């Protein structure tokens, strides 16, 4: 089954780190990605730019309403994701627990609706 690990964390705390600490943090993510690839479960990942750069769009009465900022304003922001392919939720949870994001934020584990494929693979 494929799962999306959604990494929520406080962006400010990263910005407030010293360059050294930031580098260490990045290295931890590199090592984690490496481990996912080695295990053959890695499907993709991306780091997102800060919410200050985000824009929200919704159609209201047939017109696109464009707003500055995230859909939900929270203390912790969606900052990136990993997509993994593992046999079951327990495997996904154990990868989520190893993710550096679980130590400085929260990792949400979301199964991907793969339009039939994941049923066949199950």
């Amino acid at each position, binding site marked *: 089954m494929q799962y999306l690990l959604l990494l929520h964390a406080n962006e400010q705390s990263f910005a407030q780190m010293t360059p050294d600490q930031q580098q260490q943090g990045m290295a931890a993510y590199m090592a984690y990605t490496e481990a996912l690839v080695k295990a053959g479960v890695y499907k993709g990942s991306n780091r997102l730019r800060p919410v200050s750069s985000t824009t929200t769009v919704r159609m209201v009465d047939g017109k696109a309403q464009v707003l500055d900022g995230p859909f939900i304003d929270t203390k912790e922001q969606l900052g990136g994701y990993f997509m993994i392919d593992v046999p079951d939720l*327990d495997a*996904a*949870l154990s990868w989520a627990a190893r993710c550096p994001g679980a130590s400085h934020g929260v990792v949400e584990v979301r*199964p991907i609706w793969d339009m039939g494929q994941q049923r*066949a693979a199950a």
Partner: protein
Amino acid sequence: MDPNQGGELARSTAEAVARRSYGKLVAFLAVRTRDVSSAEDALSEAFAAALVDWPKNGCPINPEAWLLTAARRKSIDVFRGAQRHELATAELLQLELAAREPEVHEIPDERLAMMFACAHPSIDAVVRAPLMLQVVLGLDAGRIGAAFLASPAAMGKRLVRAKEKIREAGIPIRVPGREELPDRLDAVLNAIYAAFSEGWTDPAGLDAARRDLAEEGLFLARLLASLLPEEPEALGLLALLLHAESRRRARRTSAGEFVPLAMQDQILWDHEQIAEGEALLRRAIAMDHIGRFQLEAAVQSAHVDRCRTGARNWTHVAELYAALFQLTGSPVVLINRALAIAEVEGAAAGLRALPDEQADPRLTQYQPYWAARSELLARQGAFDEARQANEIAIGLERDPAVRAFLEHRRPEHAESDSNAVSPHP
């Protein structure tokens, strides 16, 4: 054969199989697909088919295998009928291959794996016990709802959602590995304990749904202990429930009045259950890995021993509660420990050992806290304060029999029995 007689035999055979093997069949059908709802549906259709087929053709020698084969065929029919996405043909193929397997004579027991799935950390904690009762024992939502104070519709919805979660989130129906087992086992033990306790909250046993639930909880505990005979906490839980169950008939008078432990008629105790509980506890403790349920069973064992022999074992009881507090951090345990201390060192020491309601505001809403305070204050001669505390205790109690007991208990002559107001008299 007389058709009526055949129908009767078919029905009683089907009922016996349902009682014996329902959970086993559902677990086996769902273990690969993780689709509990479909497994239940297929099985209930298989039972319906059996009631038509068996009176005509006679009951099969191995009714479980017959039902399993029928249920698998139903699953394939449903699968075809639903016209799901074409990519799902792989699953269909799997189902068809499984249906062609030679008849199984001994169905592998996947119920333990199913219990772990029901108590998975990603399943809402409050629905774990109901889910286990339904999937492993086949109880319907109405009966479970009645015991958990929810409407059949609300309970049904919760159960459906939980089963969807198992399938859609990919919760494995599997016994966790060695390293995960201790954590995950706790959730299973707690769910079984919750199932039993819901049954226990109708102490008079007037509400049939609840009384049965205590029995079903006991059944689950027995099943768990038989499937995990090397896990001391599984044995400890069964020992605890047996102790509680053994005094069921003694804890109420025929008029439904509450009888505290020390005043119970021991002839009404089920001494066989007590002996079984004691043997289990000894086996568990010999494994040298203490846990919450073993300690709670040990407390019960000590109470029973005191009542039977008159041995003043309150120091031992206080120590058990102290150990239990180390494990659980529960203020409720401290209340019981304080009452035990009062038996050894006097009411003043007991009052000092009571947890502080300021430190834990939950205590102000907890009946046993006020009842314990009242009792200790009365023993010190502080009758006004004792009466006040007793009033609050009465106001907080849900069970009318316990309420009546507290009302009749006059703080001037407080009956000293530390277990009088705890959940397992």
